[in-house]
């Protein structure tokens, strides 16, 4: 038996009646509108993806072996790079600031500037940028390849939830381990700055350390770690989202990896400003006299 035979209309369509300036203008407006709708859709989709990821944290935690594997890859394997970047950043800060401070005879104050910068800004941001570049791109490429080769569909077809299985362990690992990476970046920056100032610039150790302790408070460490957790969550979500929505082919995977880093970095910079403003307001409002971290 055979069903009703549908007819095939193989003819090409006729000429497009819409031409001329008005039609071109209308198409441009339509394109702008479509871009706007696309952006709103993408943001909405990202928020839904974030919601689905967060919802799993309250329903079922990921398997322990998946967590350990991701924590090792995201946290432990990132430590050497973050340590090196942190150490050299501390030294570069010393080099850049020394000439200016010496002009005013304030070179013994270098420690306070280096430490404050590392605790509040450079430690969290450096750790986040390293995580986005080293881990975020890799996660997007890995998940993108899984999407392209139908491995994510295979997971779904076997009754596993891909968000729970693939995204939640990566997100949690980024969120929980970025504070450790930040502490490492801060520590190495402080040590790097101190070693350069004392050993190469000849600044007196006692004056340097006294000033370094004087201006750094517990709040500064808290400030840096809170920021870093926002950054870690951002990297986890954006990288996984880009991987999940990867376009087909090798180019699609490459683009997913690149956009994961670029979007993460852009959001990190914006969040850096917003979280800094909020934390400063909180500090001024409820905790104006925090004790020094080093008890100076």
């Amino acid at each position, binding site marked *: 038996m055979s069903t009703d035979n549908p007819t095939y209309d193989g003819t090409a369509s006729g000429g497009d009646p819409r031409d001329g300036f008005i039609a071109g203008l209308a198409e441009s407006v339509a394109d702008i509108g479509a871009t706007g709708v696309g952006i709103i859709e993408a943001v909405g989709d990202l928020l839904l993806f974030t919601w689905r990821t967060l919802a799993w944290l309250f329903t079922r935690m990921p398997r322990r072996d998946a967590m350990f594997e991701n924590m090792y890859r995201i946290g432990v394997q990132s430590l050497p790079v973050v340590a090196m970047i942190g150490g050299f950043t501390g030294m570069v800060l010393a080099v850049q600031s020394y000439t200016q401070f010496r002009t005013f005879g304030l070179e013994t104050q270098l420690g306070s500037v280096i430490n404050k910068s590392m605790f509040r800004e450079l430690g969290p941001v450096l750790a986040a940028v390293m995580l986005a570049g080293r881990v975020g791109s890799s996660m997007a490429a890995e998940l993108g390849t899984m999407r392209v080769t139908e*491995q994510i569909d295979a997971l779904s077809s076997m009754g596993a939830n891909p968000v729970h299985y693939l995204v939640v362990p990566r997100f949690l690992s980024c969120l929980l381990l970025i504070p450790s990476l930040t502490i490492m970046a801060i520590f190495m920056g402080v040590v790097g700055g101190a070693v350069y100032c004392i050993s190469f610039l000849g600044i007196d150790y006692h004056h340097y350390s006294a000033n370094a302790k004087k201006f750094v408070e517990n709040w500064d460490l808290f400030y840096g770690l809170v920021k870093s957790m926002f950054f870690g969550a951002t990297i986890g979500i954006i990288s996984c989202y880009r991987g999940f929505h990867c376009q087909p082919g090798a180019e699609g995977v490459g683009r997913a990896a690149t956009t994961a880093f670029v979007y993460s970095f852009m959001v990190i910079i914006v969040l850096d400003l917003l979280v800094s403003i909020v934390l400063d307001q909180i500090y001024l409002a409820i905790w104006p006299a925090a004790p020094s971290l080093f008890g100076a």
Partner: protein
Amino acid sequence: MSEPLINIDHLTVRFGRQMVLRDVSLEVPRGQTLAIIGESGCGKTVLLKTIIGLIAPTAGRVTFDNQSLVELDDRELARQRTRFGFVFQNAALFDSMTVADNILFPLKQHRPKEVRANGGSGRDVMHQLIGEVGLPVNVLHKYPAELSGGMRKRVGLARALVMRPEVLLYDEPTTGLDPIMSDVINELMLRCSEAYNVTSIIVTHDMTSARKVADRIVMLYPLARLDRGESQILYDGSSEEVDDSSDRRVSQFVRGEAGDRLEELQAATVGGDDFFGDERS
């Protein structure tokens, strides 16, 4: 007549402006082996993924055992999907896992009663399946990248069978394989249908495979211009009768003859440009 296990009712699937399937209706009774044939890009894989709920219909309804999978909550959807086995075109094995871990994955994920009752990890089931699909035990420790295409397909089949599914979905199971290995896969599909009494849906271009394995053949065909898709069912009948179809498009497809297809493709090309480009002039 008994209730169909899978019922596709006026299904339409659209991705953005691209309509892939239009108003497709199909019933698959329990125990039947159905082959879905059709040209590349006509929406066969989309239809297969819609059946298991990986793609949501734009219009119409797909039900499995009288329930629509896309309307179920996550927990129930996961439970229902254990009743399916899906053999993907390139097997879709997890790169980061060994063959053994790939096959055991559904068991670890769902821990079915049978496995728990035996107090095991399902390794006995895995060894039995590896033997059934004709793979040596030493592949269990290998990674998918170390396997040939035929081996990957057979591992994919073993993974699909590990939960003892009621329905097996095959996406182009013989594509990219040599004739001998294609026939091995065909034999395996036949044996699975008989041994496990599963309902099978096979998406394929391979008429030898469709004739050999399927009880029934459905051909999808783009109703509108080729670049716009809109596939509908052109032929729905037994695998024996497909060769005698009076429809020119069906007979051309089953004989593998292009006929006037090239002219149709050129006529359907947007703006009059064809794929020969400037070189043709």
